[in-house]
């Protein structure tokens, strides 16, 4: 990733709800390495950890159970879920020549069955935002390595 990857926001067609404008999501395509299909994945800056549907554990990425669990409240339901180490990769924005997918390995919480609408992957603080710098702007968002933030704002 020599340069920032720039993405448009996505309108899934969820409607407006109480909002004066359509609900827009920061969505990237994520997959396990060498997978033939990707998943639409929503970046959730308020989420403590990346969460995936259980079926993804069978799609590669060398999942390793950590033996630990966490209590997760998602979509109004509360579950105690296992934590895995998993390798995922993010694809560059479609329609660009931005380069090859970038893989990272991190913690994911695994929810099975998956209760959500929308996507089967939520990218949270652990397991995504500790690996990437994400900059949100009014017209889109940008993805860069975590080192970008540290170089821009070094800790004294």
């Amino acid at each position, binding site marked *: 990733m020599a340069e920032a990857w720039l993405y448009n926001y996505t309108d899934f*067609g969820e409607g407006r709800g109480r909002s004066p404008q359509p609900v827009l999501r920061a969505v990237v*395509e994520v997959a396990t390495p060498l997978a033939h*299909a990707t998943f639409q994945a929503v970046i959730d800056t308020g989420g403590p950890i990346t969460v995936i549907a259980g079926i993804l554990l069978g799609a590669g990425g060398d999942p390793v159970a950590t033996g630990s669990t966490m209590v997760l*409240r*998602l979509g109004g339901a509360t579950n105690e879920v296992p934590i895995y180490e998993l390798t995922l990769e993010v694809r560059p924005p479609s329609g660009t020549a931005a380069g090859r997918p970038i893989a990272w390995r991190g913690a994911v919480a695994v929810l099975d069955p*998956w209760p959500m*609408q*929308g996507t089967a992957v939520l990218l*949270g603080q652990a397991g995504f935002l500790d690996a990437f710098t994400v900059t949100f702007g009014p017209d889109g968002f940008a993805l860069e390595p975590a080192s970008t933030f540290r170089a821009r704002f070094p800790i004294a």
Partner: protein
Amino acid sequence: MVRTLDLADWAGRWVALDEHDHVARDAETLEDLMVILDAEGVEGVSIMRAPVPGEPVVYGLG
């Protein structure tokens, strides 16, 4: 710029989108969709569940 998906005809179903965000395959469940993609050797698609209009999508972790 906003990427806008029109998936009303597939509301509530799991869909595999091609590179133009057109629905290439769909199924009632994520598991069923994965089976179809594997069986038919479909590649280069991206998976999501089409939202149901008026049904709020809640992404809230904690």
